Structure formats: C-alpha cells, structure tokens
C-alpha cells in the first residue's frame, strides 16, 4: 500500500560533476498527504531542490519509486509525465521563469493554453486570479516592467490557474525583500488552506518554520522530519 498523495520510496539520484559522481539524493523515502504544508530546509547542495524536482517530475530518479495519487510514475514515458505535471502540479521557481516576450496575462495563461481552454475563458479566469493577487493593473506589463514580487505573483497565478493538487515552490522568496517575501508566503499559505498541498524549499528558517511539517536535508538525506506545530514562529 502506498498511502497519501505523494509517496517516494528509496529515491536515489547521482549527478556527474565533471568526472566525479556526486550523489544528490541517497535513498530518500517520503510520504505526503493531501493538503499538507511542508517545508524542506537545508544547506545549499543538500539535495532539497532535486527532491522537489523529483516530486514535480521535472527530474527522473536513478532508482526508487515515486507514486503519485496511488499510481506509479517512475516508468511512465515523458509525454505522460508532462500530462501529469499539467493536471496535478504547479511550479513556482526562485527566478519566476516568466517568458520575457509575453505579458503578465500571457505568461499566466500558458497552462490554460496547454490544456486547450478557449481564449475568452482563459482571459476571464486570469482576470479573476489577477484581481485576487492584486495584479489587475499589471496584466499587460512585460516581466521586465514588473517588480520581483509582482513577477513572483504572476508565477503563482500561472501555477494555480489549473487548480493543481500540489504546489511546489523552490525558494519562492529567494529573490525578494522581506515584505514582498512575506506577501508571497501568505498568498501560498492561503492557497494551502483552500486544500492545495504546498511544498516549499527554502534555506530561510523564518520561511521554513511557517510550515506545518518541516523536513531538514543534509547531504542527500532527510535528517529531520518535524511534524507538528509552528512553535518557533
């Protein structure tokens, strides 16, 4: 049996750095339930981003199994994994990864385009989300005309338009000042409260400690899994 929404079993990944094999994940096992709010902390190079990429199926493990929604994914071909990403997973990257030539609206509607949603529906949906995220006046701005916080909010809009089950955020506040960072975190947590599973990778303890469940990684292994309450807040 594989309980929960996400189930990792003995996931290992080794990168080649030059000639030297560098194990980034060492037989990591992890189960995450629907609606969880998880933070993954650790020093840089500890494998926390790689773990997040595994969960988001952006990367493929060398060994081990990954079950998503009680279904094994490791042996799926790339096209099927792409579909799963589209339907179940939203990403927020540290540097937003907005396409520079596209306006805020056009960037946010990309997942809707991929899901074959019609033009009018798309624009209505984006308008609603933008007004909720306070982006309404920026909808036609290009990424270079937006502040870091605004860019990240566009990225959040893009991640949530298809109402995914899982929201994966890799250092979402990394490029932001404290106020903007907190705003972004509050936004993500609000989404979590509405039922979306939220996993945040960060090296910032203040951010990480906000999560209900806190993982700490060192050298490719989970060394601490603190369920419970945010006592340090």
């Amino acid at each position, binding site marked *: 049996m594989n309980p929960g929404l996400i189930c990792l079993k003995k996931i290992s990944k080794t990168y080649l750095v030059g000639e030297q094999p560098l194990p980034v994940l060492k037989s990591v096992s992890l189960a995450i339930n629907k609606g969880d709010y998880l933070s993954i902390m650790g020093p840089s190079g500890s494998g926390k981003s790689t773990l997040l990429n595994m969960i988001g199926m952006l990367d493929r493990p060398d060994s081990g199994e990954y079950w998503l929604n009680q279904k094994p994914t490791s042996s799926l071909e790339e*096209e099927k994994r*792409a579909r799963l990403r589209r339907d179940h997973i939203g990403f927020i*990257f540290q540097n937003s*990864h907005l396409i520079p030539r*596209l306006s805020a609206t056009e960037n946010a509607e990309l997942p809707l385009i991929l899901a074959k949603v019609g033009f009018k529906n798309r624009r209505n949906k984006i308008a609603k989300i933008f007004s909720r995220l306070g982006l309404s006046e920026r909808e036609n701005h290009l990424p270079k005309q937006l502040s870091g916080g605004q860019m990240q909010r566009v990225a959040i809009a893009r991640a949530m338009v298809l109402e995914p089950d899982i929201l994966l955020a890799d250092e979402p506040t990394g490029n932001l000042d404290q106020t903007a960072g907190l705003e972004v975190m509050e936004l993500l947590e609000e989404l979590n409260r509405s039922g979306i599973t939220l996993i945040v990778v960060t090296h910032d303890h203040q951010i990480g400690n906000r999560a209900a469940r806190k993982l700490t990684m060192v050298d490719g292994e989970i060394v601490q899994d603190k369920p419970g309450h945010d006592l340090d807040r």
Partner: protein
Amino acid sequence: MTLIDNWRYSLQALVRHRLRTGFVLTAVAIGVTSVLVLTSLGEGARRFIELEFSALGNEIMVVLPGRKQTTGGSIPLYGNSPRDLTIEDALAMQKVSTIKAVAPIIAGTSLISYQGKSREVITLGSTTELFSVRKLQLSQGRVFTIGTSTVAKPVCVLGATIKAELFGNKNPIGQWVRFSGQRFRVVGILEERGESMGLDMRQMAIIPIAAAQNLFNSPALFRILLELKQSGSEAYTEAKLRQIIKKRHEGEDDITILTQRAMMNAFDNILNVVTVSIGAIAAISLIVAGFLIMNVSFISVSQRKQEIGLLKALGATGAEVRNIFLTEALIVVGLGVLIGLALGYTLTLVAVVLWPFIPLAIPWWATAASIAVAFGVGLLFSWLPASAAAKQDPVLALRGN
C-alpha cells in the same frame, strides 16, 4: 494546445523576437536568391550557346569542298580540296527540289582602307541569298541584290566593328572604300551580332561573288550554304547533292556536307559540360544556403532551451513543443522563401533588361530545389534541437543546457 493557439504562440514569438526572426528570414532569403541567381547565370550561358545555333537557321546545310570525316570534333573550316567547288556547282545544286536557297561563298582576306585608315578584313564574296540564309540583319542601308552574275558590281556590306573603326560615327552609306586597291561603295552595315559558327560577323565585309572572284583572282568556293524548304529532307538532299557533284566532278563526290544537326552534335559536348557546370553551381549554392539556414535555425532554437524547459514544466508534451517550433520554422522559412524568390527573379529580370544579349533564365528545377532545400533544412534543424530539448527531463532544459 489547440491549432489556433499553436499558431498564435508561434507568430507572437516571431513578431516579438524581431532580430532573431530577421536573421533567419535573411538567411533563407539570401540562400534562395543566391541559388536562383547563380543557376540563372549558368542557364544563361547555355541558352546563349543554343541561341547562337538557332540563329543559324534550322534547315541549313553547308557544303565544303573535299572529303572530310566529321567525327564529332570541331567543324572543319577549310576542307582540303583536290577539286574546287565552283559557282557552277552551286547553280546546279539550286535545281534540287528540296532546296530553297543557295548561297555560295568565296572567302579571303583583303586590306580595306578609307581616308588613310586601313585594316585587314575577312572578305566574303556571295549573293543576296547569304543574308537570308544566315539571317543577317542590317542596321543601316540595304543589301545588294546581286545573284551569281558575272558582273562584278563594286558594292559592299560591312560588319559593325569595321564600320566603327573606319567611319566612327559618320554615315558610311554611299562612301567609297578600297579593298586591296579596288574601289567599292558601301551600301549597308550589318547589325551588331555575336560570333556564330566561328565567324565573327562584326569583323566581316561582304561583297558580290563576282567581285570577290576578281579580287582574289580565283573561282574556288570556300563553301556553299544551303537552305532547305523544310527540315527532315536532309538525307534526300544530301544524296541528291552527291549525285550532282559526282556527275560534275568526274565521278567523285569530293564534298563534305554538314547538316545543322551534325553541327549541333559537335557542340553537344560543350552543352553537356555547361549543363553539368550549372548542376554543380546549383548544388554548391544549395549546400551553402542549406548550411546557412541550418546554422541560423539551430542556434535560434537552441537559445530557447529555457523556454522549452518551462513549457515542459508547465505540462507541455514533447509533441506540443515540437509543433510550436515547427510552426515557427514553417512561417519564417515560408516568408524567407517568398522574399528570396521575389529577389532572385527581380534581380534576374533587371539583369535581362540591362544586358539583353545574355539570355539569363532561372531553370524551374533550381526554383523547386531551392524551395525544397530551404524548407527541408529549415524545418529539420528547427525540429532537431527542439525535439532534443523536449525529450530531456525538464530540469536540464530549464537550466539551459
């Protein structure tokens, strides 16, 4: 992704990346244009040679004194003749039913002079028929209307170069010139035309055949040109001619008969070399154009690996990514090909207007091949990097490697 969104996305990418789009567009256009222009040069050379031949007329036979085998090499300009051809032989030939016109020619060099200026000139003695048989047009004056009569009327028609050298811009008609001392009145000037059959008509003077007999003091003909009433009767005519000559030359048909077709065969080698050269020119320019398009396409798609990674992370399938980039390539290459075709044909047209004597023409297969190569290479080398990036796990593409 729907088809409309696919096109919208691709068009948007092209419009908003103006510089990159411009580079690819230019590469394709230049590639196509260069193929068209280069092949049109080769084809122009080929047509030039062909036209020179057809200017000779389609139903022409040439009779040379003496027997000489034509083995497909060069045309024998002078036969070795044991027995001369004479005007009387030419007159006898006129009775063959398939022959429309006979133009006997006496040739030699003489010194032409006018008001202290003089030069050596190849002088042809012939009849009025020469002008129609060789399709010689006059730019000034008129032809002399003298047949094979023995009256040596002192008139002449000059080639364009001779006229320019002796008279400059003066009107030569009615002027008297001297051929090796004998006075001739200029009645006409040949229209400017290139070489044909190894004779540069611009450097010639034509006088009546009887006058030439006097001038060179010999009745021997250089050759006889025959024009047939219709093509296809060469074999019959040749047999008839040999009969006549046999009768007149004590049982020897000691003549050589060249048909237009035989002469064409002699030049087939040249035409073949030219045709092969055009093919080579086309192939080289296609390869160069192909590499140009390949590089620009490859680089422009490779620059967008991050975008591909992002699309994949957002859930785009490899097929959707490939479609986007193929659509882009299709639009750019299509536009580039159109521009290239327009440019190539315009340049060729302008060249034809500027230099009408070179019959430049773009062969249809060069057009087809350049279009095929542009689309083939452009699409393939957009597809390859896009497909390679789309196949990777998205993390790699997202990092941009």
